[in-house]
């Protein structure tokens, strides 16, 4: 108790120095939390992937579609419980800057496979009844002020033409990590228009989403599915949803790695700043440490005193940084919602930031503690006055 009192009073002794160091630490931890959240947001699709979902796509490339007839064949594979399908529509809403994912999905089964998209039953039924209905994520609806029954116009680019959709459902995420900025409409509406205008492009799905009964069978089932279409003109590649999502992230691996490295560089810089502060502080107090040793206090007490002060500064700065991270992340997430639709500070990031704060405090105290421990009492006292 007395030690804690001494630590707190020592911490507040050089108020300006302590305040500036705490603010520096806060900025560093804030930057660390934001950068980690950017990385997490980048991997949001991977994190949200379900272990009992596989994705089957064209073995050559995702841009080549697969015949819709594959669905029935995949359904026959042992261990498969349901199959959904989707097409990447792209398109433009207002202009190119208003980007959000737009997909044509099989209306009967798609949402069964994605329970993380929570849709009121009546809205789902309305979607399933109306050919040009669409279901949109909650954040997107809020952003554009859409209401149920509104008509939403898209200009097609992959599928040229003017497309009109009626908003019949709004989904919300079952968890905070669910992307609520997607736009889904019915695959059969897309196919119907294609049959009229571009018949050679009708009857294809961009990819299949396969629900399996046992995630441990994913390897064998993937092989079985791909074997079905071996040597056909449209061979398939089946992988877990996680691997499928990783395929997108892998393209930007270098950027993500750079962000990760920068987040740790920030931590290294603040470690040096705090170490410098603690070294200066300890040097000024060497005679006090000598007095404490003279009175009989050992190196353990000095370690607790110095590291306690260092960890208090680091933790106060860390907590301030973490507290600031929430409003900053909120604003940042709002501004970047098109690129990073899921932007939430994960509890793991906070845990990591807290651990790092404590570690920084401990490491910054290492050198001054070592010096205090090695100090000769008589020499330190002879410099007093």
């Amino acid at each position, binding site marked *: *108790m*007395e030690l804690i009192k*001494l630590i707190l*009073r*020592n911490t507040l*002794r050089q108020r300006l120095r302590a305040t500036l160091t705490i603010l520096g630490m806060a900025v560093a931890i804030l930057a660390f939390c934001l950068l980690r959240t950017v990385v997490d947001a980048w991997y949001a699709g991977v994190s949200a992937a379900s272990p009992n979902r596989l994705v089957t796509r064209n073995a050559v490339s995702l841009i080549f579609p697969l015949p819709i007839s594959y669905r029935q064949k995949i359904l026959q594979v042992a261990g498969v419980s349901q199959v959904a399908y989707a097409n990447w529509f792209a398109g433009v809403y207002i202009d190119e800057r208003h980007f959000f994912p737009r997909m044509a999905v099989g209306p009967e089964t798609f949402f069964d496979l994605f329970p993380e998209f929570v849709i009121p039953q009546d809205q789902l039924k309305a979607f399933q009844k109306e050919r040009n209905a669409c279901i949109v994520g909650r954040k997107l609806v809020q952003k554009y002020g859409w209401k149920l029954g509104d008509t939403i116009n898209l200009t097609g680019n992959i599928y040229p033409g003017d497309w009109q959709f009626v908003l019949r459902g709004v989904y919300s995420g079952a968890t905070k990590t669910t992307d609520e900025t997607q736009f889904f409409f019915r695959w059969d509406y897309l196919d119907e228009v294609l049959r009229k205008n571009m018949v050679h492009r009708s009857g294809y799905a961009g990819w299949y989403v396969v629900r399996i009964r046992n995630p441990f069978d994913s390897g064998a089932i993937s092989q079985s599915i791909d074997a079905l279409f071996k040597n056909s003109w449209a061979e398939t590649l089946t992988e877990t949803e996680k691997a499928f999502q990783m395929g997108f992230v892998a393209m930007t691996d270098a950027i993500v790695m750079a962000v990760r490295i920068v987040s740790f560089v920030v931590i290294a810089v603040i470690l040096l700043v705090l170490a410098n502060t603690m070294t200066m502080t300890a040097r000024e107090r060497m*005679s*006090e440490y000598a*007095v*404490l*040793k*003279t*009175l*009989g*206090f*050992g190196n353990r007490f000095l370690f607790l005193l110095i590291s306690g002060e260092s960890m208090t500064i680091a933790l106060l700065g860390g907590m301030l940084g973490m507290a600031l991270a929430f409003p900053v992340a909120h604003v940042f997430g709002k501004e970047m919602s098109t690129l990073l639709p899921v932007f939430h500070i994960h509890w793991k990031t906070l845990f990591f930031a807290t651990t790092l704060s404590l570690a920084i405090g401990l490491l910054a105290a290492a050198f001054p503690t070592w010096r205090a421990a090695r100090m*000769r*009492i*008589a020499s330190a*006292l*002879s410099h*007093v*006055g």
Partner: protein
Amino acid sequence: MTENKSSLAPPPIVQVENIYKSYRRGSQEISVLRGINLAITEGNFVALMGPSGSGKTTLLNLIAGIDRPDEGRLLVAGTDITRLGELDLARWRAHHVGFVFQFYNLLPVLSGLENVELPLLLRDLTRKQRREHAMLALELVGLQDRVHHYPRELSGGQQQRVAIARAIVTDPTLIVADEPTGDLDKTSATEVLALLEQLNQEFSKTIIMVTHDPRAAEKAKEIHHLDKGVFNNN
């Protein structure tokens, strides 16, 4: 020169036997103490005098266990402190020695009472007991009305009296004082010396004091003069 004003001679509580101590300054070795022998009886008040660099503070530090000799034995209250490890020596200091420094060396973030309480943190006492002991020591030095003042709010003389209270609060075997009046005005110096004399006479505390001041040395029962690392018998 050694002057002995005591009439009775109880057994020595401090025995310094053939002590040598030198320091290195760069490549040069400076011999500070050269074969010092000294016996101090219990309840004595000893002044160590001598010019700067004569080795008096070094001798005091060795007796107090905050430095180690190169050669020789140091027996304090029957313990050869030259044989103690760092941890045991720290424990020994906490139990047997009270320190008074020239510049008081109080912790500025602690009040007078908390400074006096500090050495008691190493004892198995409750918070209430520690407070009681510290209050008693502060009353003894006449500072019961300044207990919650911080060092910066006290005069030099008052700070030194707090330091004396801190030195006696554990009831140590001996009190070592290094130039206790060196940083004080005449009035405060007189008060501090009177206090040390009172501790020696009324409470039979063994005191070893390093001083340049002949008036301070006058309060001691024994005066030892050091010059160039040896006692000057002339």
